[in-house]
């Protein structure tokens, strides 16, 4: 393990609202989101980020990535106690996602981006450890003049009217000399093209940022519905969410050899995954934009192509497959399918891809003329995973004794991962209340 770590930022942008559960509560909220103890601004807990990244890399390791090396080894499962060993620490240290910018609406309905200067200054300080030195002391001193009653704001390019009771005094850009350009350079590096350049950016002091966050936070009401789509008693909840578009930066330290390999990803953070909350894109700074979603490929030969499917492609493909099962839904089949998806996942993890699919093929019994629901479920599962058309007869007798290529495995794992996610939300497990079996 190296003793001079490689430091780098990753940027995280919410594609949907997110809630990062807080241990402390608020009187008016059932589920507040985690906020900084001093500034009461939202952040992405490093433990959340680390756990999701680990899961992602365990299932879809990219080139040069190893989850155990990056995040540490796990103790073996209790069913194999003879191979228990001490944990080795991971070589990747993940920091909290600190807020770079969050959106707020101006009084005239325009979206603006609030950038708390205290974090910009922190990012500059951390950047200096890597040799990227940008200092804007005059901007810092100007914003530091804010007091409890009057805030300070540097607007790029101009300040729209804001709906806040806090008085805010603008900082004249002319007084800041070339530091405005330095700041723009830093912001371009941190935000990339993930912040719209044609919308106002408002760089503010701490208290003003907190005041504007109270306006920006979205409060949602949720209630649970039963099988008949009727609200359950006492299930109303008020949930605080971080709005879509909010941008965070997390500072990573890599203690492994060479440079850290981290690809742009789409992941889910925080609660409410099944409701679509918390999906975000992440990328290391200096990387390209996340790969744009492409239309799913038309059904191909039973073996998938060696082109690696993007996560977005897999998501859309599986979503459409699942939706085809809903018109009309066969509850018995869906119950079996859910069970099959979980079973295959466990086998992939414990015994490998080839073994898991061999077992699924055996359960599918493709030659059996009058298949039971479970066999139908496994057949559907295999066809979906393998993106296969036809009746799987061509696979009969095969034992998948030829290993899948790494690219094929990545595609299979991505599809299975989205099957698992959508199965929890979309596939039923029980009959409606009052309905007969």
């Amino acid at each position, binding site marked *: 393990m190296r003793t001079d770590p490689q430091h780098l930022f990753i940027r995280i942008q919410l594609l949907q609202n997110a809630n990062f559960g807080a241990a402390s509560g608020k009187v008016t909220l059932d589920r507040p989101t*985690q906020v900084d103890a001093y500034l009461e601004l939202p952040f992405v807990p490093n*433990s959340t980020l680390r756990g999701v990244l*680990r899961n992602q890399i365990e299932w879809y390791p990219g080139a040069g990535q190893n989850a155990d090396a990056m995040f540490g080894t796990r103790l073996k499962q209790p069913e194999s106690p003879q191979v228990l060993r*001490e944990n080795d620490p991971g070589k990747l240290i993940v920091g909290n996602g600190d807020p770079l910018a969050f959106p707020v609406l101006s009084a005239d309905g325009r979206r603006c981006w609030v950038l708390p200067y205290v974090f910009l200054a922190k990012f500059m300080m951390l950047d200096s450890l890597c040799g990227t030195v940008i200092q804007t002391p005059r*901007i810092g001193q100007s914003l*530091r003049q804010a007091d409890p009653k009057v805030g300070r704001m540097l607007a790029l390019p101009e300040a729209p009217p804001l709906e806040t009771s806090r008085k805010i005094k603008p900082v004249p850009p002319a007084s800041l000399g070339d530091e405005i350009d330095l700041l723009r350079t830093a912001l371009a590096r941190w935000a990339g093209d993930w912040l719209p350049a044609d919308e106002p950016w408002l760089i503010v002091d701490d208290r003003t940022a907190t005041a504007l966050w109270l306006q920006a936070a979205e409060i949602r009401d949720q209630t649970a519905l039963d099988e008949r789509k009727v609200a359950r008693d006492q299930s109303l909840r008020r949930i605080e969410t971080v709005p879509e578009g909010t941008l965070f930066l997390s500072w990573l330290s890599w203690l492994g050899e060479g440079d850290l390999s981290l690809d742009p990803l789409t992941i889910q953070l925080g609660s409410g995954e099944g409701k679509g909350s918390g999906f975000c894109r992440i990328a290391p700074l200096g990387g390209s934009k996340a790969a744009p979603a492409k239309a799913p490929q038309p059904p191909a030969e039973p073996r998938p192509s060696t082109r690696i499917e993007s996560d977005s492609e897999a998501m859309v493909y599986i979503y459409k497959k699942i939706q085809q099962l809903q018109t009309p839904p066969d509850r018995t089949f869906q119950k079996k399918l859910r069970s099959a998806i979980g079973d295959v*996942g466990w086998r992939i993890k414990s015994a490998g891809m080839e073994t898991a699919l061999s077992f699924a093929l055996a359960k599918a019994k493709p030659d059996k003329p009058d298949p039971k629901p479970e066999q139908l479920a496994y057949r559907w599962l295999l066809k979906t995973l393998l993106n296969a058309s036809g009746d799987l007869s061509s696979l009969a007798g095969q034992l998948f004794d030829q290993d899948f290529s790494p690219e094929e495995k990545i595609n299979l794992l991505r599809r299975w991962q989205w099957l698992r996610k959508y199965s*929890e939300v979309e596939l039923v497990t029980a009959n409606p209340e009052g309905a007969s079996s």
Partner: protein
Amino acid sequence: MNNQDHLYNVNLMPVEPILFTDNRSARAGEDHLIQDQDPSPHTIYGAIGACVAGMFGVEIDEKQWEPVASKYLGKFASNIRDGDPARSELLGYHYHDPGGHAWFPRPQHIRLRQPGEEKIWIAAAGNVQKVESELIAASLETFERFLNYAADDKECEIPDLFSHDLLKACLCGNMQENELTPDSDRLPLERLYRHENRLGLGMDYERNQTLTGRLFSRPYRRYSAQIDSKGNWSGMSIRAYFKTTAPLENERIQNRRIALLGGDRGRAIAEFESAGDEKPLLDICRAVQQAAADSDGFYLYLLTPAVREGDWPLIKGAKPLAAAIGKDRAVSGWNSNRQGQHPRPIRRLLPAGSVLFYPWPEGKPDPQLIHEYWLEPLTYKNGEHYRNSGFGRLLIGVWKNEN
């Protein structure tokens, strides 16, 4: 030019919330209820030692230690109990704010009163009232018998820190009842850090489900940070005094490094600076030496917490006459030797700020004693335990018998 005496001021500035616990698995049923506490001296010692080793590309690993790391840190030792002057030492530490002001634990014999909402006053500075013969019993007499102190119903027990000048006045025995100004005389603890409780869930990632009964809360400590007068980001830091076994080359210490602190390997920026050849905080030491002339005795002030080991410690063969000590606390730590990482045994500590009162040897003020014991570790009859890790480092004050 290198610091030939190899003493360094080390600033550790956390850049993210830190989790300091005592490694106990405090479960209520299946839940973890982990308590927050100040870092153990050994945590600070280990973090700085790892930084020094890292300057030479060496990990905390017994197999890698020789010959490079041992030149600057001494031989690798897993047992922190046995003191060894041939190894590196942590001489002490305290807090530092972004404005460069030092802050220290309140001496426990200084009582505070809060008559109203905001203002805090010194209520009493305990002075040893009656000097009797050396105690024979193993335990000390009660606080009130020896220390001139009357209970005050407006007394408050707040964990505020004392400024450099206020501590100096305390150690010189010049305390009077006066108002303590926040951020000038005293630092409210919440200006240093705030707790940030964070929930955690045990997950079964294969099934994407939470594990039953694995909800826990961890009390991270977020140190305050601000934009300083120069317009830069700056946070509260720990100022430590660290002695190596060989001078560090200037090119090694000129760059800032990352130190890992506490659970989750929280990161702090470590900056090293040569400290010259004199003991740290020497201005306070000299002031106390000057105040010793008309004093009746001296007292030990724990700058860092000390491991309790039975009998009260002897100074020049004398037992203490009185003491004002805080509630002891448990600390653990982590043995990060790459050959087998594991938690350290739990130890109970006298907290920093505790004071123990002694008579002058032979009844005569001894300013030289003050300098001799300045930033030395608290010792017991049986030897210099825990010398290297920074436990029980002392400052010396003087007390005057008002009668």
